[in-house]
């Protein structure tokens, strides 16, 4: 069976986020509070209107989500923690959308937050020294993908650098991006930055930062009544998969599953939505390491296998291109705190669909695709659309 979810009668009521950055002196709870309040304000709602909340973070500390929700008020609403590594935010959204679609909630919230600056001890990135899978870092894992791609397809570091430069330059025109360059970033500059794991340089890798982002979904009539003139952004469909065994599967290390997970997940989501890649106006993917974005052009169906490099060379995934990717700078420039990465991605997708992404607006954006993978491993693809009055 196809396990993709089709949402019925689910619209985005509000979005809010704290720009990602290094917030050593601000607590998790206050980051979460500020993102939650921003989303409630955008929705024209208070916590009293919210029937259910899903909270997400990857910091290994229990109860933080319940505590964060109390910063917004104590109304007795059900609160559930969601943790799916880097994909946490999109999965919290999926659950909120399903709560509304199933009819059990009129209004549901996905609130995510994290502080990579506070990842200490024996967990998180660069895990403990007494674990067999700790020595190999995510950068090395994705560099292994990149090296294999270069071997099989003749991809060059210049292709990767061009994508990274695109995302840095998108970041500089998004007020929500962590990295905002004061000059136009070139592929040459990306290539000249410090090598992390060949062929990946520092500017091809996401930062480790802090932040929070929230999305509130609700029944369409409720959303219309609060903001009659606003384009109605709908949650259309979602797919979530874990690994399927295949020969050559790796079990030890920062496993993010075979890259084919993304293809299978996208197919499930397209099927549930009765849409295809040709219907998508703008896309967001897990570009923690830039070569991933190149692979996902193919795996998400935006070009045939072996043609991703052509898409890069022709600038089809940048401003004015056929399918702009990561218009807020992606994980590379917007940032990647972990939990809120997915809800920040949705924040940008909603701005694009509303036509409010000043300086980076994709013309006539009608359908947005959001994709993340998470360690462990899982992959998720979610589609949103817009109805303009």
């Amino acid at each position, binding site marked *: 069976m196809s396990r993709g979810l089709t949402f019925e009668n689910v619209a985005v009521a509000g979005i809010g986020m704290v720009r990602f950055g290094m917030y050593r002196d601000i607590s998790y709870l206050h980051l979460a509070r500020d993102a939650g309040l921003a989303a409630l304000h955008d929705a024209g709602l208070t916590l009293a209107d919210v029937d259910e909340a899903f909270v997400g973070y990857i910091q290994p500390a229990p109860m933080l989500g319940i505590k964060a929700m109390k910063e917004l008020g104590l109304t007795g609403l059900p609160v559930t923690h969601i943790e799916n590594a880097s994909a946490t935010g999109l999965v919290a959204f999926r659950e909120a959308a399903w709560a509304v679609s199933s009819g059990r909630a009129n209004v549901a919230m996905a609130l995510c937050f994290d502080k990579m600056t506070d990842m200490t001890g024996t967990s998180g990135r660069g895990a403990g*020294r007494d674990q067999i899978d700790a020595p190999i870092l995510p950068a090395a894992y994705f560099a292994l993908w990149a090296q294999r791609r270069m071997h099989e397809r003749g991809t060059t570091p210049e292709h990767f650098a061009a994508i990274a430069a695109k995302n840095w330059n998108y970041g500089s025109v998004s007020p929500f991006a962590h990295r905002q360059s004061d000059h136009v970033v070139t592929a040459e500059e990306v290539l000249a930055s410090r090598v992390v794991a060949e062929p990946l340089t520092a500017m091809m890798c996401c930062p480790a930062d802090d932040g929070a982002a929230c999305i509130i979904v609700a029944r369409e009539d409720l959303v219309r009544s609060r903001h009659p003139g606003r384009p109605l952004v709908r949650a259309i469909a979602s797919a979530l998969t874990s690994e399927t065994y295949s020969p050559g599967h790796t079990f030890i290390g920062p496993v993010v599953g075979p890259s084919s997970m993304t293809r299978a997940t996208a197919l499930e989501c397209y099927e549930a939505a009765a849409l295809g890649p040709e219907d998508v106006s703008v896309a967001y993917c897990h570009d923690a390491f830039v070569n991933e974005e190149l692979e996902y052009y193919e795996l998400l169906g935006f070009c045939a296998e072996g043609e991703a490099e052509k898409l890069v060379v022709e600038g089809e995934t940048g401003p004015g291109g056929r399918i702009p990717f990561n218009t807020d700078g992606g994980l590379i420039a917007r940032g990647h705190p972990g939990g809120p990465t997915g809800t920040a991605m949705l924040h940008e997708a909603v701005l694009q669909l509303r036509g409010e992404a000043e300086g980076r607006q994709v013309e006539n954006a009608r359908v947005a695709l959001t994709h993340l993978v998470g360690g462990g491993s899982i992959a998720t693809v979610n589609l949103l659309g817009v109805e303009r009055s």
Partner: protein
Amino acid sequence: MARVPIEPGFFRIPDDPDEPPRLLGSRCPSCGEAFFPRRLVCAKCLHEGTEDIELSTRGTIHTWTYCHVPLFGKKDADVAGYGVAQVDLPEGPRVQSILFGGPDDFAIGMEVEIDLETLRQNKDGDDVVIYRFRPAHAGAAAGPGSAPGSTS
């Protein structure tokens, strides 16, 4: 001074320091698929109950990279640069491992063999070790059925 694994249950350390370590795997008696590390339920056919095997000491590089960030991501780790690879073993499993050698010593498709890297000493003075692969020397590799001590 003894050698102890970074984490028990993944590889066997021979008493003879000249012998290579052996990765501990499983084989499904129903479908024949082999796995690293050991597991009870076959990941391919879901058969419950697998047989313990020791995996070959040689394999070929599927892909590799050379890293310039510290091992474990720790700032105090005393490693300047190191290779990382996915190594395909003859039994089937693909193993991710650190490499012993310089940035010019490896290529996709190259044959490599396993040995041990000492990471640090624990509080008892034992060497804490992890498996690694290095360019294969000429000579026979230890296969799954070979007895301890048969490796050249």
